[in-house]
């Protein structure tokens, strides 16, 4: 009964007017938009902190801030970029695209969807409010190694913020899985699902498996700090190395959570602009599943230097190296898709190609780090910083930008400014490489992470790195301008938008109507 009545209402109402539309919305497109804008805001916040870090590191010595402030900026930069920028951006894309790509009218649990978004701003308000408190922001690094972190002031704010972010991610993932499992258009088998949907299905399972472990880790931290337990305090019979095991048991799947959706996005874009179907759809799926499964058995490669026995070091070294195989399958798959295609280089394609090239560089430095004996030299140097920024900035973030350019005409109904888009790409591409490539050099030369100051011999490359960072940071304002411009004006987009694009989302009008696929489309195997 109620279903009938609600359906009747849905036929007539559009979005509510004013701010209440955004507060109470249960529409997947509205929530996707909220997620994307929130993540962009956090991207700028975390980016501003990165600018502070690079300004301090521009020359040796302490110029702008004391080491405590510096550590706080590094910590908050990491937390904000991971939990505030990259993850919400992918959830936003999932909200916009998954229902449209599988021919569903909305997400399966729309009210929970609303809640999982609105928890996020509260979490970050709690986390950022520590900036205005005595004791200041957390400064123990985003990895919050105990017992260092348990001795910090304001740790309870950090713990509760992480709890809330975790709840938000878990609810988002449950929503994604339930939607994909139950609401696919009739005739669409699992194997026929678009790769972005596949990548998110796997990501959602990873999130459900590891976010509760993160919640457990921070709960133990809270108990150590305030309730007299000693999970991680050696003095009370606990074990600090145990913390690292628990943390990285969450942490390694977490880094794949931040890259798997990027694989899906890149597959769509490369296929569209090469005007060829993807070289191997099911091999991509199997590769992603293997990466996800392997991510649970490699965590200790983050902690080779804690004094593990040789057998464990070897196991984690080999397990880590095996991941290169499915990753290689993906990279060759993209290359084979481009091969002999009719390629055009619109902005999304430029970002996608840069993703493949630069992510591969980051992946290769990851393989170098996986070699146990070599890791003792690289551990906690800027080589590690260069490695994970190569997989996260031109990896995850470039793929998000590619996705925004690619689907923006579908969302807004207007084409973005192609010239400006290309300018944004080249500035970002040059900026990223100038920032992070030199960090390989200083890292191999022995410059350690997490210090506000460094030895004179590293001065030149750090100055270069800072200039690159300012270039990259400033060019993101251009991105903001391009997106805002496309929201309000621009050449009208057709429903198809890109002539090589395939998928259900291109069968609806541009901009996508507020409600799509209220009658499911037919999909033929």
């Amino acid at each position, binding site marked *: 009964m*109620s*279903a009938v009545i*609600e*359906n009747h209402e849905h036929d007539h109402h559009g979005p509510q007017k004013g701010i209440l539309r955004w507060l109470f919305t249960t529409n997947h497109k509205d929530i996707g938009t909220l997620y994307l804008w929130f993540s962009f805001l956090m991207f700028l916040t975390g980016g501003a902190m990165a600018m502070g870090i690079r300004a301090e590191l521009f020359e040796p010595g302490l110029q702008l801030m004391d080491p405590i402030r510096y550590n706080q900026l590094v910590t908050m930069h990491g937390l904000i970029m991971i939990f505030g920028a990259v993850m919400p951006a992918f959830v936003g894309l999932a909200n916009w695209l998954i229902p449209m790509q599988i021919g569903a*009218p*909305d997400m*399966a*649990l*729309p009210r929970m969807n609303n809640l999982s978004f609105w928890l996020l701003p509260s979490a970050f308000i709690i986390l950022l409010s520590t900036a205005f408190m*005595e*004791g200041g922001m957390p400064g123990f690094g985003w990895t919050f190694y105990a017992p260092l972190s348990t*001795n*910090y*002031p304001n740790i309870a704010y950090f713990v509760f913020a992480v709890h809330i972010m975790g709840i938000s991610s*878990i609810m988002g*993932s*449950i929503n994604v*899985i*339930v939607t994909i*499992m*139950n609401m696919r258009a009739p005739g669409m088998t699992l194997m026929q699902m678009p790769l972005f949907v596949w990548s998110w299905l796997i990501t959602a399972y990873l999130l*459900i*498996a*590891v*976010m*509760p*472990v*993160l*919640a*457990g*880790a921070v709960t*133990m931290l809270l108990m150590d*700090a*305030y*309730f*007299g337990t000693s*999970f991680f*305090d*050696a*003095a*009370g*019979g606990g*074990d600090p*190395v*145990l913390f690292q*095991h*628990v943390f990285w*048991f*969450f942490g390694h799947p977490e880094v794949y959570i931040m890259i798997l959706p990027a694989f899906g996005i890149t597959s769509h874009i490369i296929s569209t602009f090469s005007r060829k179907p993807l070289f191997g759809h099911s091999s991509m799926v199997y590769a992603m599943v293997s990466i996800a499964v392997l991510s649970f058995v490699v965590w200790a490669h983050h902690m080779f230097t804690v*004094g*593990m*026995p040789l057998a*464990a070091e070897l196991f984690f070294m080999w397990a880590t190296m095996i991941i290169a195989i499915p990753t290689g399958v993906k990279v060759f798959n993209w290359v084979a898709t481009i091969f002999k295609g009719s390629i055009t280089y619109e902005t999304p394609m430029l970002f996608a190609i840069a993703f493949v090239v630069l992510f591969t560089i980051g992946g290769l430095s990851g393989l170098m780090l996986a070699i146990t004996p070599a890791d003792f030299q690289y551990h906690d140097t800027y080589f590690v910083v260069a490695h994970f920024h190569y997989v996260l900035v031109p990896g995850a973030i470039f793929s998000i930008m590619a996705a925004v350019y690619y689907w923006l005409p579908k969302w807004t109904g207007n084409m973005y400014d192609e010239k400006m888009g290309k300018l944004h790409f080249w500035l970002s591409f040059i900026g990223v490489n100038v920032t992070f490539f030199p960090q390989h050099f200083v890292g191999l030369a022995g410059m350690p992470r997490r210090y506000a100051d460094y030895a004179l011999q590293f001065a030149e490359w750090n100055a270069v790195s800072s200039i690159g960072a300012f270039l990259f940071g400033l060019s993101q304002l251009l991105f903001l301008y391009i997106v805002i411009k496309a929201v309000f004006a621009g050449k009208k987009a057709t429903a198809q938008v890109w002539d090589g694009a395939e998928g259900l989302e291109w069968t609806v009008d541009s901009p996508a109507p507020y409600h799509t696929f209220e009658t499911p489309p037919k999909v033929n195997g």
Partner: protein
Amino acid sequence: MAKNNFSSKIFLNLVSAVIFMFFFSFMLVPLYNVFCEVTGLNGKIYGPSSFFVKDDVEKKDSREIRIKFLSQVNESAPVNFFPSSNEVRVWTDKVSKTSYIAENTTDKQLTLTIIPSVSPGLAAENVKKIQCFCFEEQTLKPYERQEWPVRFYVSSEVGDNVNDIYLSYTLFETDRVLTDNMNHGK
């Protein structure tokens, strides 16, 4: 939108997976301890070992091993705590004796727990303690200074590549005041 049955089933499965994983993270603590106890990997010492246990393992020749003593005080404990000698040379299977000194620097009575650790971790099971202040809680009256004896031997089953063993004790106050803990670090 009507919810269909299989939708809520998968939803409930996922929620239970979340709850399971949350408690699984706590289960990692005992699992880790058992794992370390069985494999002897992290240098922890579990309870006293008896000198008189007869084992069938053939004893190797006695050889000399250098033992270094370390001490650490948890930052919240107002105690001076140090070994009476920093280093001794012992013969395997021969019982040796040393001691640690602890001094209360406050006008309050303190209850203390001391946690031992052995490095390299794989030699931990070969360091047998017969008498140790770490077996039970210790109390220090205001400004009291005590000498705590340790009697131990190193079993000759210790690996041939082990010539130096570090024996470390970390002392902490058993009933730390919670508010103290909340405020320190500022």
